[in-house]
């Protein structure tokens, strides 16, 4: 339905870029994480394509409607390239201009997802998957990880190992008594590098 003049404006903005794009490090327009109702768990917009919260929410709703039923990983929406990934009850999105190299955006998405899954496995013994509950219990980890991956729209790091290392969430907050010996051993077997605090 024809509802939002925002749509037109966004298109026009992107159109301006269509000829002779200025080479730039500013690659990512937004990073979003939505839950399986399409509600925002995390959203970071790096430019003013969607300046107000209202426009952002409308965009997120549109994105969610177009993507939550299919498991394909890329789409063109409102003149922007959206790469996405879903896992259990979470939807991860990285958004860039339609002229952006899709694989770069994909690298950001993969880095975000892999970093989170390593961090969550490390932090939670009973919730090893990247799922909503585990994420909510580690919000600060998510905030710090995104901050290490993208800075103001520039890709800062694309290697999940590096990101996990820099976020440096140490396990010493978890009282050791809550872990059984086997769990500790599996964790260290699976992720020796993490447990060694690399």
């Amino acid at each position, binding site marked *: 339905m*024809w509802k939002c003049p925002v749509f037109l404006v966004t298109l026009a903005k992107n159109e301006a870029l269509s000829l002779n794009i200025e080479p730039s*490090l500013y690659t990512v327009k937004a990073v979003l994480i939505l839950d399986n109702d399409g509600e925002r768990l995390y959203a970071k917009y790096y430019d003013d394509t969607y300046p107000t919260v209202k426009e952002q929410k409308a965009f997120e709703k549109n994105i969610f409607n177009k993507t939550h039923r299919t498991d*394909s990983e890329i789409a*063109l929406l409102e003149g922007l390239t959206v790469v996405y990934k879903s896992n259990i009850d979470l939807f991860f999105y990285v958004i860039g201009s339609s002229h952006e190299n*899709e694989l770069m955006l994909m690298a950001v998405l993969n880095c975000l997802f892999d970093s989170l899954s390593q961090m969550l496995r490390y932090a939670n013994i009973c919730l090893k998957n990247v*799922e909503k509950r585990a994420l909510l219990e580690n919000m*600060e980890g998510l905030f710090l990880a995104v901050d290490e991956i993208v*800075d*103001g729209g520039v890709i800062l790091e694309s290697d999940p190992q*590096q990101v996990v290392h820099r976020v440096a969430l140490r396990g010493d907050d978890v009282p050791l008594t809550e872990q059984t010996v086997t769990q500790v051993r599996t964790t260290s077997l699976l992720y020796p590098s993490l447990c060694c605090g690399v």
Partner: protein
Amino acid sequence: MIKKFDKKDEESGSGSNPFQHLEKSAVLQEARIFNETPINPRRCLHILTKIIYLLNQGEHFGTTEATEAFFAMTRLFQSNDQTLRRMCYLTIKEMANISEDVIIVTSSLTKDMTGKEDVYRGPAIRALCRITDTTMLQAIERYMKQAIVDKVPSVSSSALVSSLHMVKMSYDVVKRWVNEAQEAASSDNIMVQYHALGLLYHLRKNDRLAVTKMLNKFTKSGLKSPFAYCMLIRIASKLLDETEGGHDSPLFDFIEGCLRNKNEMVVYEAASAIVHMPNCTARELAPAVSVLQLFCSSPKAALRYAAVRTLNKVAMKHPSAVTACNLDLENLITDSNRSIATLAITTLLKTGSESSVDRLMKQISSFVSEISDEFKVVVVQAISALCQKYPRKHSVMMNFLSNMLRDDGGFEYKRAIVDCIISIIEENPESKETGLAHLCEFIEDCEHTVLATKILHLLGKEGPRTPQPSKYIRFIFNRVVLESEAVRAAAVSALAKFGAQNDDLLPSVLVLMQRCMMDSDDEVRDRATFYMNVLQQKQKALNAAYIFNGLSVSIPGLEKSLHQYTLEPTEKPFDMKSVPLVTTPITEQKTEIAPVATSKLPEKLAPSRQDIYQEQLASIPEFQSLGPLFKSSDPVQLTEAETEYVVRCIKHTFARHMVFQFDCTNTLNDQLLQKVVVQMEPSEAYEVEHYIPALSLPYSQPGSCYTLIRLPDDDPTAVSCTFSCTMKYLVRDCDPNTGEPDDDGYDDEYVLEDLEVTVADHIQKVLKPNFGAAWEEVGDEFEKEETFALASVRTLDEAVNNIISFLGMQPCERSDKVPENKNSHVLFLAGVFRGGHDVLVRARLALADGVTMQVTVRSSEETVVDVILASVG
């Protein structure tokens, strides 16, 4: 782990969100524990997380409350908990714009950025640069320089990226760090390399020489980072584009070499750069296309998408280059990612043969409802292109389009469909009735005013000439009853056209008009009243002038003339003939559907080329008394392209004069030309009145000189003339390096090619949407007819094109298109002769051995008829 102490949350089901019902005021209340000693890191961390979460949800924080929370937070720097410290940095960044006095944390951050803990240093730099302004930046400049060349990658990257962010604000300061950035560019770390390259480019992008040097250095030394490679490719292709460098340049070789990089990201970037280069030959495209072809079978959806999207772009310009990929594209038709499938199909539609059209259309209609509007527009574009290629397929297309029209969709999408249907109707007379029927159905439930008015206009134009005009009346009148003002007004205009064309419908139309005169809107009432009165006269000429064929003047021109008229009130009525005519007739614009990511925002009406000339000429005092500019020709080259001086001429026609504008360019860098005039020797009774020289013509800076010619008054039939032209000037030799000219010069001249003035220069094209009515309007008072044999012409197409370009008149009723396999054709031409006399030409053509042509000319002025016939003969 943070919430481990909160057992309740853990047990309340996996869907629960502990942040769901956060109250901003409650969280800010909790933030008071920041002031407690000793600091409880875990609780403080949790509260900071809540604050950032709220900010992230778009919660609005007032300045006072934000500042209060911010100041409380600064106390947390006393704790040495790593995660807590990191969250403080984040809070500083998030609050930098909402809280006041954020600069108080500067010293804490400076301490952290220069401290021993590597984990703190990078994030501290980024937080610090977020709150720093130009003056403060100088205070930390020393630290920034050190950080850029720091051996810890995260520190160096943070410093480089923060510098990049600050280029916008403090270019002059950051510029001084170029040497450090240069050093960082040779780092081993791939991200540092990338960030350093990005910063260096941003600092140097206005200096083309520096960019070239930088490119040379990095393309030779080779980089490790794929991101940096992508950046280099972009810089190289931009430089190629700007310098219009040939494809034999080393930069092009570099990009082509990247096609063999081992990283897919780099390969794709290179392929995409080559594809987007203007004027790429098929041979140059081939390697790029073949890597894209490989990507088509990648297991990664993003890569397949990227490949097929780029191939789709290639197919627009070079369909043959993509044919090799047809098999791979076929496999993508059933791709589970609908965007990929759509792009594959539309690409195939561009490259495939006529026989595959049905199958592809069927395939695409099975999932058209699942794809986004952007791709639906892509599909419509492909169909539109297809209709032009395979006109016989129009019934399949029309069906498909009408189904798409019924679906939901945004304005851009609907507009694309409507434009496409309209262009099909115009191309194929057989499809007219079905097309109009679909459009009628569409406006019954159309929320877009622009589209409804457009369709109503089309109905008014085409409807009355269909076998059963009465069936459209109902659709149109429904609009009058149901719609907004703009649509109602358009509907009234459409109705009037039915009444004017069809005598048997006239009584009913008059009744309907009567009802429209009761409308609540002024414009609708005015139109109804006006049309009512015109229709009641039952005069063909009136109908033609006021209902069928509207004004053909240029709108900006009319605005200007009317404004002028109101400034100098006179007794004389306003003369429409003094308004310049519109130069590009409305339907001349091919119904091009806008590409995907464009939108026609309501633009200011751009002045046409002729309006610009009018302004330029009016600023020259000698030309001010000539009256309005009647017509400007396209530029004619009077020299070869590669000669010492390049001269082209534009012919400007006025009521009694012609002005020749010579655009001259001096391509010799050791000469300065002065007082340049083009001397003209007419072959007929044309009289040169005045030369206006170009005073100075330095190397490669174009200049214009003018020649004013008076047209012969006594013999109005002398419309064609040949001029021999010589350029005369004073040469001053100069130093090619400094451009410093010698003191004295010498006269010289340069012979140009002859310039011809033909009948076409005296006629302005005018589109008559309804030629028949215009024909009646002019009447047969000065009608003349003659028959010619065009011996040298072999086909009707050729004959039609020759006549159009010779007379320079506007073909009407799409009569410039000769149907296939016909032996006869009628061509309708309309124009206005210099002085404002309408002139219409009807040429009946018959194909036998050669082409026989019977020309009938009508005009409001007898001499004009003679001129046309004389010049054809």
